[in-house]
């Protein structure tokens, strides 16, 4: 633990003893950096990269000829095509002279050219100049318009911070809210490891709340209350509640009633609500729709709408667009005092500005072509094609898991992930324990070694003790998907057979 093993820190505090120089090594760098864990790019991901290298070099001897990256929501690396309209505008913004070329009108639809002009006319210096640290005004205005249309409630562009992906927003908020280890952030378990990693990095404490698998991964207020009371009785301060909706890795979509309960809880316990809403366009289940926390909050009456501090985050990396590499995102602040906003502005200004083409992409996504626009038909076709295909893939993956022995799997209502629960033979648990690993780690590592399918073990997200899960994306192209589920099923059968056999024999 920090203090028992921290002779270096103790030395530091024992001034004024002369300090001799210390070369940089893992032992002498910031403990919070070392302690932060990040499972999505952990040991299994690293090994998969090595396999890819081997395959590229033409080495044989592997039991597979392709690595299937189901560990990270990175759709375009798996062949998902970008939305034409967005890329057309981006390419014109990169190289505005194209608009003057006689052939431009043959290649680019007029609304793409008009949009690029509108942005370039209003962004001094275009994509190559630093913009305002919160993002260019015109782009924030377009995002605000999209939010207002989504919710039916106004959005002030001055409350928006455009960022390099959604992750910087999480970093900013953690840095801002956490003062020391006594400060806790309530995080769902299972959770996306960005939260555990940043809380560690900024020296705070993660206060977990368990999502109930048997109830579609919903959280209960009674349980949240219990966690907060326990923490407070130990002298800790609870600062914020993280909610991921649609869920990652759990894929559930919250309903109005549940969201109201969470908001009420935040009000009662004086918590900032950190709403990770990056999967808001990824909804697959019939009868489910995405409701933003902003909308719900605004419709709960002045007692709530004017009080509960809310941070709503969104990204260009998910949805039907999947522009991960572009690094675009935003967060909206609701019910934050002006001087706190000033502080967040200052933090953003230290990095000068988010990348401008990511900002443009965010604005395009929140303000896409409308019916009647020349690009609308193609845009709608591309968007619907991708979302329908994702829905089919979600169903295929869930059906496959449900057909496996000892596996249960909730519906993928939204987001990009299935999170099946594995009941593995005791011999597998024991074999894993011998390596000092949880059983799902062993399972995922063997899955990779035998099939080339890269997943993330549930232990990387946290799970109820004694349960084991796997997170897989639903992103391999439909043509590959049949193969992936086939290989997965075969692997599972052999895994179960092997460890049951060992069990029987021992």
């Amino acid at each position, binding site marked *: *633990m*920090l*203090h028992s*093993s921290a002779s270096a*820190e103790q030395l*530091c505090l024992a*001034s004024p*003893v002369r*300090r*001799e*120089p210390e*070369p940089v*090594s893992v032992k002498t760098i*910031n*403990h919070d950096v070392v302690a932060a864990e990040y499972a*999505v*790019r952990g040991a299994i991901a690293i090994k998969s990269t090595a396999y890819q290298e081997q395959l590229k070099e033409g080495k044989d001897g592997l039991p597979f000829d392709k690595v299937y990256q189901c560990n990270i929501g990175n*759709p*375009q*690396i798996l062949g998902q095509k970008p939305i034409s309209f967005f*890329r057309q505008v981006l*390419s014109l913004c*990169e190289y505005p002279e*194209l608009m003057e070329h006689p*052939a431009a009108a*043959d290649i680019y639809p007029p609304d793409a050219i008009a949009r690029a002009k509108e942005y370039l006319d209003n962004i001094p*210096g275009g994509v*190559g*100049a*630093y913009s305002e640290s919160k993002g260019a005004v015109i782009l924030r205005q377009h995002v605000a318009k999209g939010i207002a249309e989504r919710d039916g409630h106004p959005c002030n562009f001055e409350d928006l911070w455009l960022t*390099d992906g959604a992750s910087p927003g999480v*970093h900013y908020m953690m840095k*801002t809210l*956490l*003062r020391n280890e006594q400060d806790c952030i309530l995080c769902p*378990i299972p959770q996306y490891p*960005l939260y555990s990693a940043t809380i560690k*990095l900024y020296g705070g*404490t993660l*206060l*977990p709340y368990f999502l109930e698998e048997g109830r579609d991964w919903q959280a209960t207020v009674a*349980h949240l209350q*219990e*966690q907060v009371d*326990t923490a407070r009785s*130990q002298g*800790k301060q609870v600062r914020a509640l993280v909610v991921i909706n649609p869920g990652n890795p759990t894929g559930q979509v919250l309903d109005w009633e549940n969201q109201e309960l969470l908001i009420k809880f935040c009000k009662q316990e*004086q*918590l900032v609500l950190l709403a990770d809403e990056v999967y808001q366009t990824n909804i697959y289940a019939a009868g489910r729709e995405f409701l933003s926390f902003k909308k719900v909050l605004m419709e709960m009456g002045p007692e709530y709408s004017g009080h509960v501090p809310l941070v709503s985050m969104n990204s260009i990396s998910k949805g039907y667009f999947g522009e*991960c*590499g*572009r690094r675009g995102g935003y967060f909206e602040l609701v019910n934050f*005092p002006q*001087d706190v906003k000033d502080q967040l502005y*200052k*933090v953003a200004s*230290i*990095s000068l500005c988010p990348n401008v083409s990511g900002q443009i992409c965010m604005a395009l996504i929140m303000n896409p072509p409308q019916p009647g626009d020349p690009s609308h038909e193609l845009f709608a076709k591309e968007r619907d094609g991708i979302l329908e295909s994702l829905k089919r893939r979600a169903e295929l993956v869930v059906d496959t898991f449900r057909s496996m022995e000892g596996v249960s799997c909730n519906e993928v209502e939204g987001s990009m992930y299935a999170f099946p629960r594995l009941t593995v033979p005791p011999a597998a648990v024991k074999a894993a324990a011998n390596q000092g690993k949880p059983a799902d780690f062993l399972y995922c590592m063997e899955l990779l070694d035998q099939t080339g399918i890269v997943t993330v073990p549930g232990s990387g997200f946290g799970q*109820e*003790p004694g349960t084991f899960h796997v997170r897989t994306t639903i992103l391999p192209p439909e043509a590959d998907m049949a193969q992936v589920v086939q290989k997965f099923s075969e692997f599972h059968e052999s895994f179960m057979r092997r460890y049951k056999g060992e069990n029987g024999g021992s």
Partner: protein
Amino acid sequence: MCVRCIAKARTAGRAVQALLQGWQAPAGACRTARCFSSLPEPAVDAPARPNELEGKVAHPSLLNEDLLKAQYAVRGELYMKAMELQKAGKELIFTNVGNPQQLGQLPIKFNREVTSLVVAPFLLDHPAVASLYPKDVIERARKLNKMFGGAVGAYTDSRGNAGVRQEVADFIKRRDGYPSNPEHIFLTDGASVAVRLLLNALIRDSNDHILVPIPQYPLYSASIQLYGGTLLGYNLKEQTGWSMDFNEITRSVNEARNRGACVRGMVFINPGNPTGQCLTEDNLRDLVKFAHQEKVVLMADEVYQPNIYQDEKPFVSAKKVLGDLGVPYSNSVELASFHTVSKGVLGECGLRGGYVELTNFHPGTIDELYKAVSINLSPNTVGQVAMSLMVNPPQPGQESYEQWKKEHDEGLASLRRRAHAMTDGFNSLEGVTCTFTEGAMYSFPRLHLPPKAIAAAKAAGKPADTFYCLQLLEETGIVTVPGSGFGQEEGTFHLRTTILPPEEKIQDFVKLFQDFHKKFMAKYA
């Protein structure tokens, strides 16, 4: 299980107990934990700190202290005032940030042609593509497209695309004559991100000190504060062209160490920001020897390496000097060198591309940094493409070479002329002295202000140079940064302006400045 965890397990509720059993402990930690504290247990009835003030949870006085203390002058009071004036319709000249394209500098054509194709790969298959783009542009776009697996819309390796890192390593090797390992290069969203990455890892608590030049670029003071460390300033000597005085630096390191401080790193900026000086090889050798002797990590801010406006002191990288000095320096001095696409003649600030090369770093530390960057998934791909194009420009014989060469050489020559025009303009003024801008993008004139001006500033509760810059802004619309934002020798006053106003406007700019200055001096004579 540690004592604290046992106690906790006894008192905790069901869910907490479940948690204690369920989480994996990080290696070396209490095996029961992730108990939610690895911290001293509070006294049993310690009252919880208020979580709300004046009805606000996120109340400014309840925020992270380091955040509140951090200051960032480049976008500080002057900038806020400028924004206010701009909203009111005043026309402004922004010379506060090195942001060339905002002032009308055109991007390098080849780079943008390639980028426009890379982000719109469908154009590559369009029949009109050959009429729109030169052949080498199309080829380069195809190559990059392949390097990124056909998908610049996808996350890359968290350190950046392996192909681009290899290109950067090749560029460094060509520049220095010494090998560079692409595994020790991290591509980042601009160099600022790389600087913060290093500072976050080096700084453990407020006792950890980082040597920073004064005047300095406020990224360093702000980030060191943000990560809870302490800045140990070393003065650059204006009289001798902003040179370093190693006797003084050694003395201040010793003093700090005798106080019990831990001195971890040393930042230097070459060419200098805001001071514009270029370091000689002799100077760099002293630096490297100093870092070796005092065991500090050298943080070499070399983002202005292409921006050189004289021939006596060409840019020499710290990495090259390390190699030239040989063992024990070349295999032991820990060096982090930063570079960017935002400066040079590219000036691609908005694309956010940068890198850090780590030399002689512990492999475990490189792994930790890799993990830290992975929390943000990956740097933006357009910035990575811009980096690739910067380190790998068109070559003689290729179709775009002549045009590229012309833009590149003219851009640099124009900056050189502007550096002269700017410093000459300042030096022609009574009460102003200005060291020649040997490199980078800034002039940092010293203002010898009359006592009445200093008294008036004091009465207004502002440093005298802020007072001066605010009046300059209000009367001329010129946005600068006062020297107090960078730090300066006690009792001296400066301001920083970029040399970036377009060449055809630079004489007007100088004139505008001169008129204001004369009026100001007369007013407070």
